[in-house]
């Protein structure tokens, strides 16, 4: 009787995932839990990290073995991915490059490009702060990645989540999980990564530089901006045109003044739905058997290198510009050129404000910050074109 009970219990247990839990699953569940903790306790990109962390946890809770006898135990979440259920289509939205342009539509509808239009000299910082992309690319190649993989890894340094996903899906789709996780995690950790680099490369006097108030940008300029940029990008950068075109459409909806409802939907409800789908799709790629390997560790390290070099090159570019400018700029705004709107601009403002409480750099930093989005798009576009993925 007891023997029979034991056999029944064993058979029952074999139908669950409990017996298939590996150390890799446990590590990834801890990684997911850390993401959720960072989002809730530290407020680091909660809109992204809660969804990614949660689906990472669920993707690593093993289910019963696959239909094949002796097959691999996969989680209920991944079953759904495999069987063509909800998460399958969530992932397809990313894989077929539908989600990233829709995110850009929402970002455009939320963004005021006024600071960038008001001070065109500062757009150069949007290119200067992208040295990190190429340092990471070269190091990745040295580590043995293919050039396409190295390009996808390098774009982490562009500090732009949708662009990183877009370029990765074109160059190295198998690296989507680690690259998107590295990109979003480092963007969330910017307030910790950037300030030491910024302080190391600037003097106290430089950090205290105040800047003149920017001119007011007229409504006509704000309406013309998305149209002009959309034409330029579609003419010269077709590989990244889907993203920038949608960014500009969202911005036109915001600025034209007659489509308030659409702008509100793009920046609100639609954006929230897309973020939900995106986070679940990314989290579901983080199963231990695919995610937990040396390549992931290397990618995460290279991502950090890209962010550090990007920050440094932005500050140095600003210092070089000061050699030629009559009205000096605060070099702290250089690091905002890395993109990651608006986190990097906020970091520039906070560091400057700590040195001089009367110095409010946020509006000035938003110019290079927004230019950084275009800098990443241009770098990504050139990468895709030269690597034959355009």
């Amino acid at each position, binding site marked *: 009787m007891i023997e029979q009970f034991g056999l029944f219990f064993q058979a029952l247990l074999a139908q669950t995932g409990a017996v298939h839990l590996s150390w890799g699953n446990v590590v990834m569940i801890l990684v997911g839990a850390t993401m959720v903790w960072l989002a809730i306790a530290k407020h680091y990109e909660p809109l992204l990290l809660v969804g990614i962390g949660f689906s990472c946890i669920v993707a690593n809770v093993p289910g019963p073995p696959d239909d094949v006898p002796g097959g691999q135990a996969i989680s209920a979440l991944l079953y759904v991915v495999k069987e063509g259920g909800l998460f399958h289509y969530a992932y397809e939205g990313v894989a077929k490059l539908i989600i990233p342009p829709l995110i850009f539509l929402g970002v455009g509808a939320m963004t005021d490009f006024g600071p960038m239009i008001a001070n065109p000299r500062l757009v150069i910082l949007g290119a200067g702060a992208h040295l990190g992309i190429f340092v990471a690319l070269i190091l990745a190649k040295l580590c043995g990645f293919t050039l396409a993989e190295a390009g996808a890894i390098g774009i982490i340094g562009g500090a732009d989540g949708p662009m990183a996903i877009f370029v990765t899906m074109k160059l190295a789709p198998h690296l989507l999980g680690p690259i998107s996780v590295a990109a979003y995690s480092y963007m969330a950790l910017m307030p910790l990564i950037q300030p030491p680099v910024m302080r190391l490369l600037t003097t106290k006097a430089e950090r205290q530089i105040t800047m003149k108030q920017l001119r007011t940008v007229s409504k006509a*300029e704000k309406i013309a901006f998305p149209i002009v940029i959309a034409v330029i990008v579609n003419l010269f950068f077709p590989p990244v045109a889907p993203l920038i075109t949608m960014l500009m459409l969202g911005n036109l909806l915001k600025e034209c003044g007659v489509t308030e409802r659409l702008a509100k939907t793009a920046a609100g409800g639609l954006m929230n739905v897309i973020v939900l789908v995106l986070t679940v799709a990314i989290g579901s790629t983080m199963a231990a058997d695919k995610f937990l390997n040396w390549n992931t560790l290397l990618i995460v390290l290279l991502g950090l290198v890209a962010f550090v070099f990007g920050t440094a090159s932005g500050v140095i570019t600003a210092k070089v510009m000061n050699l030629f400018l009559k009205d000096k700029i605060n070099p702290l705004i250089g690091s905002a050129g890395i993109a990651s709107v608006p986190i990097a601009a906020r970091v520039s403002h906070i560091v400057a404000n700590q040195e001089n409480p009367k110095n409010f750099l946020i509006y000035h930093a938003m110019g290079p910050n927004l230019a950084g989005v275009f800098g990443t798009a241009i*770098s990504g576009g050139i990468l895709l074109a030269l690597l034959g993925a355009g």
Partner: protein
Amino acid sequence: MQPIIPDTLEGALILSLIDFVGSFFIIAAIGVVLAGFPLIGRIAARFEKRAPAAPAAPAATEDAPQDDGELVAVLAAAAHATLGRPVRIVRIEPTNVGDAWAAEGRLAHHGSHQPGRGRG
């Protein structure tokens, strides 16, 4: 499309150089385009000046809903002019609401502590 750059370390260096320098030039070109944007503002301003004045907005009718703050200000000013002393509007409601007994009770209650007159 075939890749233009060979998959070697040298290729990575060439790709990085072309991309970094190219990005600088292209973003500088965007900066030049943006430098011309004040012209758009000036042209738009000139058009706005030439355009005929927009028809005046219809005057608010008596039926149109009014801002509560404005209504309170008007009522307070009218009461001040009539009574000759400052008053505070506590509540506004149509005269046909409630019954007479309740109104009498409220009047007595309000009268007992004279709202609107501060003690200090």
